[in-house]
């Protein structure tokens, strides 16, 4: 399955679950911000993807992808902003982000709001690859 096919699955799931128009679901759109998804919508989207592709992608997977498993106390500073360790991780996990623009002013607890449609497609693509290697 090619990336553009995964994009179409993700796009349809977002359209059906959130009720947005297809042309709003572009790669750089953030799920929680631009598309206005709430937590219940996000669960709905992930369940729809699971039903369509036959494997599970969870909100825990999304968080793990973004933070790389770095503990909260290292990912954020004492003031609650994303730390240098966190910013280095974001450079890898969310490559579209200009991390310098977040330094010292973006709260670590809001990191999920940076997650885009393209990021979700990448996560699904990775999970699909993992599933294929497990089955081989």
């Amino acid at each position, binding site marked *: 399955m090619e990336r553009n096919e995964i994009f179409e699955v993700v796009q349809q799931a977002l359209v*059906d679950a959130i009720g947005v128009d297809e042309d709003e679901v572009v790669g750089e759109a953030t799920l929680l911000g631009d598309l206005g998804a*709430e937590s*219940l*919508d*996000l669960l709905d989207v992930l*369940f729809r993807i699971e039903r369509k592709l036959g494997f599970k992608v969870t*909100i*825990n997977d*999304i968080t793990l992808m973004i933070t790389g498993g770095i503990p*909260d106390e290292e990912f954020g500073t004492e003031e609650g902003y994303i730390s240098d360790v966190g910013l280095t991780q974001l450079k890898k996990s969310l490559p579209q982000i200009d991390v310098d623009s977040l330094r010292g002013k973006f709260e670590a607890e809001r990191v999920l709001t940076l997650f885009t449609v393209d990021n979700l497609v990448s996560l699904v693509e990775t999970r699909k690859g993992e599933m294929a290697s497990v089955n081989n």
Partner: protein
Amino acid sequence: MLRQEKEKWHLLTTKLDIRTGVDLQSVAKMEKKILSNQLRLDSIFTLRELAYAEGKRRKAEYLAARFAAKEAFLKALGIGMGKGVELSEIGIKNDALSGKPSLELQGNALEFANRLGVVSMDVSLSHSEDYAIAHVVLLLDQERK
């Protein structure tokens, strides 16, 4: 010292902290998602919650309120969704006589609460045709952390 006096003395000398969390959910959205049959309800709600709501005319209201309680609890813990706690590990049970709701935890949800030093917790739910709201209060013993 009498047991009651001991408990009172313990409370007076314990460093307590309080955490709250509140969440609001749209009942119409919950209803639409239930009807679409796309939500895996058993991975969100406990069997007790599903049994409580099943067959009731206001099922979407009950489930929206319970979903709000799960979110409110996670907010009170200060972790939000996606931090290893499954929503189905946070449940609401109702007192058989009064109907008063209370939280019942298991798995990672219970572990997080213990790690934080939660010694007491309470939840309040309210819902109408349009919205459901939940408010969770956690009492923390800082010495148990």
